[in-house]
């Protein structure tokens, strides 16, 4: 497999990942800071005989994705925070109907129209449901432009494997910044049979895709089936990275672009002789509870850093379950924490053997 080393922004890398994964349908609506992805897909879908539609709204985009997914092809849509809110209705239907798709959220500052700066304020929306009803999305958190490509490919495979929407939760920083990355010239996308897809009933019984289940107990049974699926995913699809956690007194937990900054802060702290480690969840759902629970045996304190008022910190606290103190440092509304800022906060923690 030959490889190309190129310079790209995260939004474009995500688009190229989708193309490599065999995405054949993209629908989206313009919103900053993810517009490069929509533009890139308009060009690349054309070149790869896929379908690109600039929809009349995010609501329409997610429903076009519903249709194309029901018809059996690999599909993607993308947006940023306010647009993702609009897609929630469709995401609930996709989840209920067990239709695979990849949804990209390059988060921006909120609530409301907010601003176009990076944010992680959509964590709750992403991992706790977002739309109506009991469902989960697999949520992947890239931290580099290379991740934007690699995790997009992973997202398509997971979506098909489990017949469900997979969300890539990035932010404006990851979408806009350019980094060198390696692009495989081609990959063989994993193939999953789709014996449920609507293709016309030639030579078989007609198929129905629906989420309306009115018969007594039918909807509860369907929910149980979905929950069984989510349980399996929680067991086998949990991914995270740990850095310097073996001897750490303080463990930072951070995801996405903040994990990059936190890693730099960790390096600065180590240079000062502070025993600081980092856990970076790659899957936000399923959340890497076990890795954090295991780290509780050694660490004296956790520090969760987010570009939010404190959302993932709740999952860290659930995992830690009161065993050690969990501190939080967050910036909101487009504020991006610097490594010096995080270091300063680490130094202020005290009482953790530092």
């Amino acid at each position, binding site marked *: 497999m030959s490889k190309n080393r190129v310079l790209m922004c995260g939004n474009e890398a995500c688009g190229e990942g989708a193309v490599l994964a065999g995405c054949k349908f993209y629908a989206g609506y313009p919103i900053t800071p993810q517009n490069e992805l929509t533009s890139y897909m308009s060009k690349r879908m054309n070149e790869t005989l896929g379908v690109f539609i600039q929809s009349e709204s995010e609501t329409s985009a997610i429903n076009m994705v519903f249709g194309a997914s029901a018809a059996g092809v690999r599909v993607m849509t993308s947006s940023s925070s306010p647009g993702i809110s609009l897609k929630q209705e469709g995401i609930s239907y996709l989840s209920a109907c067990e239709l695979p798709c990849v949804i990209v959220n390059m988060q921006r500052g909120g609530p409301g129209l907010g601003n176009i700066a990076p944010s992680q304020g959509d964590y709750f929306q992403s991992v706790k449901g977002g739309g109506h009803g009991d469902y989960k999305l697999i949520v992947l958190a890239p931290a580099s432009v290379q991740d934007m490509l690699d995790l997009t490919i992973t997202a398509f495979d997971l979506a098909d494997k489990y017949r469900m929407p997979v969300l890539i939760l990035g932010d404006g920083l990851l979408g806009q910044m350019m980094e060198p990355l390696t692009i495989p010239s081609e990959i063989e996308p994993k193939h999953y049979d789709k014996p449920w897809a609507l293709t016309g009933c030639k030579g078989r019984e007609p198929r*129905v895709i629906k989420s309306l289940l009115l018969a007594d107990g039918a909807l509860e049974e369907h929910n149980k089936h979905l929950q069984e699926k989510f349980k399996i995913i929680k067991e086998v699809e949990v991914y995270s990275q740990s850095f310097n956690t073996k001897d750490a007194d303080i463990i930072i937990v951070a995801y996405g672009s903040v994990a990059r900054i936190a890693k730099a802060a960790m390096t600065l702290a180590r240079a000062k002789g502070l025993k600081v480690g980092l856990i970076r969840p790659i899957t936000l759902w399923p959340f890497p509870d076990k890795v954090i629970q295991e780290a509780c045996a050694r660490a004296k304190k956790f520090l969760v850093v987010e570009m939010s008022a404190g959302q993932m910190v709740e999952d860290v606290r659930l995992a830690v379950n009161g065993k050690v103190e969990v501190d939080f440092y967050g910036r909101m509304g487009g504020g991006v924490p610097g490594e010096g800022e995080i270091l300063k906060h680490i130094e202020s923690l005290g009482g953790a053997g530092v």
Partner: protein
Amino acid sequence: MIQKKDTALKNAEASVKSLRAVEHHYCAGCGHGIIHRLICEAIDEYGIRDRVIAVAPVGCAVIAYEYWNFDVTEAAHGRTPAVATGIKRVRPNNIVFTYQGDGDLAAIGTAEIIHAANRGENITVIFVNNGVYGMTGGQMAPTTLAGQKTSTTMEGRSLRRDGYPLKILEMLAVLPGVKYVERVAVNSSHEVLRAKRAISKAFKMQIDGKGFSIVEVLSMCPTYWGMTPIQASDRIKNDVAIFYPLGVIKSC
């Protein structure tokens, strides 16, 4: 769903392959059953049953897939044309149609229908206009006539408070991507035959790759009009079809 097959149903199954021989849930005098059958007859006549992918609405026809004998997906309320767009674009050789009520198409899904039409999507839309929200208890629809009593316009639709009945076909007809627009009714055997011809034509437009086709069917809702089936059929002729004139609005 009642699976009882009496002789009449068995005969129906034998004559229209696209229609399942099951009893349906529609009220006495409702037009949905007739419209379902007309669609299925047209599909059978073109021999396209194994190519059809239908998009069912939210509303009284939400479980149309229980009656149709071809591939069907549901869609969120009003998103029907967006779902159909996704299907047709990735499977252009399939025959894709939406079946939508007046709430689905002319209220909550207004953006989706206008833009699917304006893109000239090569799909067929069957738009059932009975002037009320039947499934939720007979509330005012965008197409409810002035003065008509519904469960949310108990004194009758007030133009000042509720706005005007929406003539969505006339709006869509001005769009260049729209190739065939006709309004029909199913209140008499004569009108049913005309409706059949219009529905067939709309499918033929898609088969020939002509672009967006839509047929509005004025349909009876005796239950929420507070009428007998016969009175409801008469109301179509005497009131509804006066405001919503029948006939071909556009054919390219």
